[in-house]
């Protein structure tokens, strides 16, 4: 059987199609804000927040909530707001705060899962939450819709506020001085990141999310020189890498999340070389 036929066969299954749709949407959203996060020196926030989401997921599992999103989303958003706010004038500096919250949430989450778990195979549960494993292939139609709606909202918000986000990212003080409400936009960015992270947990698992956020941005920053080109390129690159990653993982049976991240890394190396040649 040829490769094409093989793929055609897989795409007859709805769960494969769902995985592809959700994967592409998440890749698009996560790359949009990646540029801003990298430039604001907040690359690690994605990682920290994903651990928070893991902890919240564990709590939701233990308390037997039927829909985990109800708990996970607000908790992650709250932490995102706290972390981005504390950036400038907190007693505990930005990176330390991120590290503290992320390991704390991870530890508490794992402990709760162990203490109260109803499942017989805890390590498999933990592993799938951390690395995504198969959860992207078990999406229901409702989950696909939720993801699609949230993605559209995120992308629309980004487009609508693109110029303001640029202004605040480049020079927050100048933006404030000319009457732009920088705090509002920082808050908006924090909320969007939290939403993306919770969505992306299904795709790559909580340990690998920051790769999805920072790799496309870093890759396109090697080559392109305007903010707009970097943003567009990182969105396209992210979607491309994710699509390729999902296809490879379907065909060769590798874990989805880590395959996508491996492709992102390869793209980064290629872009770095291209950037070096161009200079």
């Amino acid at each position, binding site marked *: 059987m040829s490769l094409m036929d093989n793929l055609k066969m897989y795409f007859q299954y709805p769960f494969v199609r769902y995985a592809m749709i959700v994967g592409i949407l998440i890749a698009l959203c996560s790359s949009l804000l990646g540029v801003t996060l990298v*430039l*604001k*020196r907040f690359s690690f926030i994605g990682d920290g927040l994903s651990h928070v989401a893991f902890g919240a997921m564990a709590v939701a599992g233990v308390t037997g909530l039927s829909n985990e999103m109800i708990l996970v989303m607000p908790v992650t958003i709250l932490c995102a707001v706290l972390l981005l706010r504390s950036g400038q004038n907190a007693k505990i500096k930005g990176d330390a705060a991120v590290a503290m919250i992320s390991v704390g949430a991870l530890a508490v989450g794992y402990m709760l899962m162990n203490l109260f778990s109803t499942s017989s195979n805890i390590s498999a549960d933990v592993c799938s939450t951390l690395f995504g494993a198969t959860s992207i292939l078990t999406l229901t139609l409702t989950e696909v819709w939720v993801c699609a709606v949230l993605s559209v909202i995120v992308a629309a918000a980004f*487009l*609508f*506020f*693109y*110029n*303001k986000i*640029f*202004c605040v*990212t*480049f*020079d927050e*003080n*100048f*933006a*404030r*001085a*000319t*009457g*732009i409400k920088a705090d509002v936009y920082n808050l908006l960015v924090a909320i969007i990141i939290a939403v993306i992270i919770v969505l992306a947990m299904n795709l790559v698992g909580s340990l690998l999310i920051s790769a999805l956020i920072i790799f496309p941005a870093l890759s396109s*920053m090697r080559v*392109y*020189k*305007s*903010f*707009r*080109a*970097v943003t567009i390129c990182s969105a396209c690159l992210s979607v491309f890498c994710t699509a390729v990653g999902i296809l490879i993982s379907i065909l060769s049976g590798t874990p989805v999340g880590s395959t996508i991240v491996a492709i992102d890394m390869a793209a980064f190396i290629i872009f770095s070389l291209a950037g070096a040649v161009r200079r």
Partner: protein
Amino acid sequence: MAQLSVNNLSLGYDGKEILNGLSFQVTAGSYLCILGENGSGKSTLMRTILGLQSPLSGEVSTGDGLIQNEIGYLPQQTAVQKDFPATVWEIVLSGCQGRCGLRPFYRREEKQLAAENIRRMGITELRNRCYRELSGGQQQRVLLARALCATRKMLLLDEPVSGLDPKVTGEMYRLIDTLNKDGITVIMISHDMEAALRYATHILHIGKTVFFGTKQQYLESSAGKAFTGKEEM
């Protein structure tokens, strides 16, 4: 009526007062230089004027048709900007953002304004170049063009020549002087006594003793004598 009035202002941060009872006024078209040692509160004063920070007491008010949001600001460069992927055009245009309100995109007038200010700064040929590849002097011109997009009346410059070589420093000062002659009020923080005395019309010296007055009054005052005397030694 003054464009900017500072009345009995007390400045500080974390509840510590570093300066109190400061009062001065800036009228349209003047060129005010703010002098003082490191830590005397120059930057805090500037942040307060811009509304980035609230004063411990006293007030800053604008008048004569100037709104606080319409002060063009040339900040010191930040670490974030050193490797920021953005073209000159994108950065200058972002100076118009304050006029946009909630509107998501720029209008044609705003694009024209940005193009005009790029021309005014003599950086038209750099328009599509990447900011991080420019020299220090060129970067300052870009930020100055951006500040001009945000104002037609008043510029606040925070050590505009720090890190520039003597030749570029001279060009920068002449450029600022031209803008002032065109009718834009200039407030500049500086360490550079010589340039301050050459270009400024008014001097504000903050520190242990506070002085505010015209350049001539400053040269005759004890604060000025102490400072200029020290410079010469």
